């Protein structure tokens, strides 16, 4: 897929940290996350179970449970989402940013028909009359390949794949600028997986919207995304153009992840994913890393630019690489230049990022 439309940035996340207060301690689900999504871009987020992907996705819309604490900034078109009022937030959710939550079978209200759950969105947000809203809902269903005659059926009457598609219809009902899709293909058989992804990308590309695709399926990430971030234990360890990250992973974890597949030789990495309550000191991956240095257990590496637009959080690559740039510092600089609410397609900064 081409990256030709990429231009202005739509959303940028700056030093985002999320922690959950639990009885066992503070779960630091996200720490110091920084990345940005540009208009029309499909951004992938990969990582193993429990590394904080869903948390990040929900944090973008402030949908986390009460025990969560969010720090940092999430800037959507110049507005910091974290400082918006509830009311402003509501006008953002669904309308500007849509989200597909992880498990479609529990994300629909079981006692309302799917049609009415879609129509409801139009009635609530656009004040449509019942009839119009329902017509609109039927259209949406058809768009995702579900026969509109089934709109009066209830969620439990649909299979997982169909629900996933209905979820797409819901999330895209108001044509949001950004779609957050949390593991849209989990638990589906390969056929269905393809269908779903096809529909999503088609619709997203058609509207020239952006998408944050959360997945742990490397295949999917490879095929669909423009840029990818790899997460490990609450941190982003590598971020860059998908093609580069996949073909030339700089972080040992990314490398292991890519080579753990049977067809790639089933490389094994020892050890468990670390606890988020008390993560390992230094580099979080160091206990499992095969080529660790002496400093790895002491120094916590920063996310540094390795080559163009390819950031890695690893001491090894820090050493090997010459033109190292810190990601955080850049953000600070750009923040001052942002003009609120005005999308600026020709912003010079972007050029720096994506030439």
């Amino acid at each position, binding site marked *: 897929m081409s990256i030709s439309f990429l231009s202005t940035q739509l959303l940028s996340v700056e030093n985002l940290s999320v922690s959950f207060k639990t009885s066992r301690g503070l779960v630091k689900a996200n720490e110091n996350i920084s990345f940005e999504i540009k208009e029309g871009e499909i951004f992938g987020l990969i990582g193993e179970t429990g590394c904080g992907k869903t948390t990040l996705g929900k944090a973008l819309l402030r949908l986390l449970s009460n025990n969560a604490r969010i720090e940092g900034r999430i800037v959507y078109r110049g507005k910091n989402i974290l400082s918006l009022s509830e009311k402003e937030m509501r006008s953002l959710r669904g309308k500007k940013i849509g989200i597909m939550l992880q498990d479609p079978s529990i994300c629909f209200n079981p006692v309302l028909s799917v049609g009415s759950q879609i129509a409801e969105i139009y009635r609530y947000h656009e004040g449509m009359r019942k009839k119009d809203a329902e017509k609109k809902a039927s259209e949406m269903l058809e768009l995702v390949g579900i026969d509109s005659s089934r709109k009066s059926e209830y969620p439990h009457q649909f299979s997982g794949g169909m629900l996933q598609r209905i979820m797409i219809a819901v999330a895209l009902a108001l044509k949001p600028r950004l779609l957050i899709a949390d593991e849209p293909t989990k638990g589906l058989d390969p056929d269905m997986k393809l269908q779903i992804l096809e529909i999503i990308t088609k619709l997203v590309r058609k509207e020239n919207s952006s998408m944050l695709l959360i997945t742990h399926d490397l295949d999917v990430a490879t095929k669909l995304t423009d840029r990818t971030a790899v997460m490990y234990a609450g941190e982003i360890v590598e971020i860059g153009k998908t093609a580069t990250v996949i073909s030339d992973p700089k972080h040992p974890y990314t490398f292991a992840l890519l080579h*753990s597949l049977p067809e790639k030789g089933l490389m094994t*990495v020892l050890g468990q994913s670390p606890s988020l309550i008390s993560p390992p000191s230094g580099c979080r991956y160091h206990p499992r890393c095969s080529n660790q240095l002496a400093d790895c257990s002491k120094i916590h590496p920063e996310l540094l630019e390795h080559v163009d637009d390819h950031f890695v959080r690893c001491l090894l690559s820090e050493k090997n690489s010459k033109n190292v740039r810190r990601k955080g510092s850049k953000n600070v600089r750009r923040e001052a230049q942002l003009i609120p609410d005005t999308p600026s397609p020709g912003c010079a900064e972007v050029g720096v990022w994506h030439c």
Partner: protein
Amino acid sequence: MALLEVKNLKKHYYSGLFQIQVNKAVDGVSFRIEKGKTLGLVGKSGCGKSTLGRTVLRLLEPTEGSIIFDGQDISGLKDHSLKYLGTRMQIIFQNPKSCLNPKMKVYDIIAEPLRLHRLCAKDEELERVKELIEIVSLNEELLFRYPKELSGGQLQRVAIARVLSMKPELIVADEPTSMLDPLVQAQILSLLKGLQIKFKISFLFISHDIKVVEWMSDEIAFMEKGKIVNFKIVSR
């Protein structure tokens, strides 16, 4: 001679008020597994893979057909005469979270077969368990934890250790890695492979991921709607 030979095995589920609705979950399946070899079993969800696995182990009563294990037809044996099979054929499940008794500590889980079948003296038990936990490369520290305090990969290792304690000849592995992350999957798969070589265990390896099966097996059976439609020898 093959360790396990299955001939025309059928397993039908009957349901409904008068038990007349039939679900032919396994409908005439034949295959054989040599000692120390792996037969992979792939197929879509609901095609009867798990049912086949369990029937082979005689955890389910076969409707028809014969299961010849080490030269003896076990398809018609009564429950009590199956007892000797307890140590010889075993099963590993898909979901590591549900296959261990949440009320037992890891130590007891692993030691249970030893005690039940009196496989070792009481005072050797601890040694044996430690040995086993080392084989699956887990820390001894985990022995006195409850399953809910372990991660999925660790749990699956515990399950494997438990099964190994009996030194089985045949293990039915029912999608042992489908719930796990790629990294952990790789760990478990290579562990299984290593064990197979070390202990000469035969596997019936069930999965719906053809790539995984290809990596694991010597031969692959493709299943569709209760029947095996194709065999494929894996060349390496």
